[in-house]
């Protein structure tokens, strides 16, 4: 049962980072494929093959490069680098706060990329992305605080090996994290900024001016990000690797289910509901924990 942790501990920090760098795109792409297949099945369609996201990215890499200005691809490359950096830090077992803040920095570069072009659709998407970031960021930080309260450390490697089940101490924080995870996965009802299906409303939002290889890079970054987020879900169940892996997969399936069942929220509702949920579930959990610990 603990062979996963023994294997993990036998690797050096650089090796752990390398494993993440190599494996995460395959896992993320596979999950994206499962997502599309499952979404299609839930809608009564046959759906594309599970390998479809890889086909899409390979095709996008073969398309012509169209760059609107110098800063556009610069921001996207930084978005990619910082996402990969935060993922590598996380899976190497480094500080979870550093992971969270470098992920936020990656998001900021993505928004700057959206603002650097002239398209009003892109600007609208970038503004919505900002709103989304303001909505989810408090809960992500509260998650780190909650984990510190239980385990007494911010180090991911030590949090994951904490013998007690974190989920029993942090049910509210987990519920709040689940809520904002829908925003991070860019699923309905929170797919305001760059939905796959929003073309009637804001074309592709923040992605409007990105085409070909740049779009492929964004897609790959998104895979890395998804793996990192599921890794954070894993932390809550770290006491047993099999339960934790099962919980991560179940969370992903749950997000697909939510995606299929909800229409898109307005940004006001997104903002108000996620802060309300953060306050009710997250903050109250941390206050209670403060008194019982």
């Amino acid at each position, binding site marked *: 049962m603990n062979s996963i942790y023994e294997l993990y501990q036998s690797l050096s920090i650089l090796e752990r980072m390398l494993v993440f760098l190599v494996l995460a795109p395959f896992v993320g792409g596979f999950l994206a494929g499962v997502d*599309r297949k499952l979404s*299609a099945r839930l*809608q*009564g*369609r*046959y*759906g*594309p*093959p599970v390998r*479809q996201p890889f*086909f*899409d990215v*390979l*095709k996008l890499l*073969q*398309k*012509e*490069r*169209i760059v609107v200005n110098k800063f556009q691809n610069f921001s996207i490359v930084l978005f990619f680098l910082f996402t990969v950096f935060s993922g590598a830090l996380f899976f190497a077992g480094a500080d979870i706060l550093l992971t969270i803040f470098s992920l936020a920095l990656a998001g900021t570069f993505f928004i700057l990329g959206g603002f650097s072009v002239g398209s009003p659709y892109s600007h609208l998407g970038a503004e919505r992305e900002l709103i989304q970031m303001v909505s989810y960021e408090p809960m992500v930080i509260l998650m780190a605080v909650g984990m510190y309260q239980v385990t007494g450390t911010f180090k991911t490697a030590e949090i994951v090996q904490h013998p007690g089940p974190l989920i029993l101490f942090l049910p509210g924080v987990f519920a709040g994290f689940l809520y904002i995870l829908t925003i991070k996965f860019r699923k309905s009802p929170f797919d305001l900024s760059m939905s*796959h299906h929003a*073309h*009637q409303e804001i*074309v*592709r939002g923040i*992605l*409007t*001016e*990105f*085409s*070909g290889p740049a*779009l492929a890079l964004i897609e790959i970054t998104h895979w890395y990000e998804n793996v990192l987020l599921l890794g954070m879900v894993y932390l809550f169940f770290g006491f047993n690797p099999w339960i934790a892996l099962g919980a991560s997969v179940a969370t992903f399936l749950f997000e697909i289910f939510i995606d299929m069942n909800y229409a898109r929220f307005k940004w006001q509702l997104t903002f108000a509901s996620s802060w309300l949920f953060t306050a009710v579930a997250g903050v109250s959990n941390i206050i209670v924990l403060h008194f019982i610990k």
Partner: protein
Amino acid sequence: MGWFKRSPWVLHYNATSCNGCDTEVIVSLTPLYDIERFGIINTGNPKHADILLATGSVNEKSVQVLKNLYEQMPNPKVIVAVGLCAISGCVFQDCYNVQGGVDKVLPVDVYVPGCAARPESIIDGVLKACDILEEKYAQRKKSYARTQS
């Protein structure tokens, strides 16, 4: 080898169509025909599209829009004319305000006949367009290699 066959993304533009062919294009997205099983996505953004599905007889107002959309698409790209209006102008071809077909304005690669074109033939046309996309990609690659040497 190109990957265009496995993931052709489609942009649909209604150039003064009666909405008949457009409805059929949308119908091919539904569970009955489900074009996403071929990896085809209806994007709505010219910068992400590989194939332009144009319907209608193209009047004076829509010429410029059609040209803009085509120019914004990154290479390689293919145009599919869907429906008889897009092929020849059909019953509207003598009207004073229509161009009479998409190929009067832009180089059309695949013609999908029918009034309205049936979803099956639209899917067939898009898959034919994929082969042309592959060819165009191969040509581009060859000409690029020539300029490099």
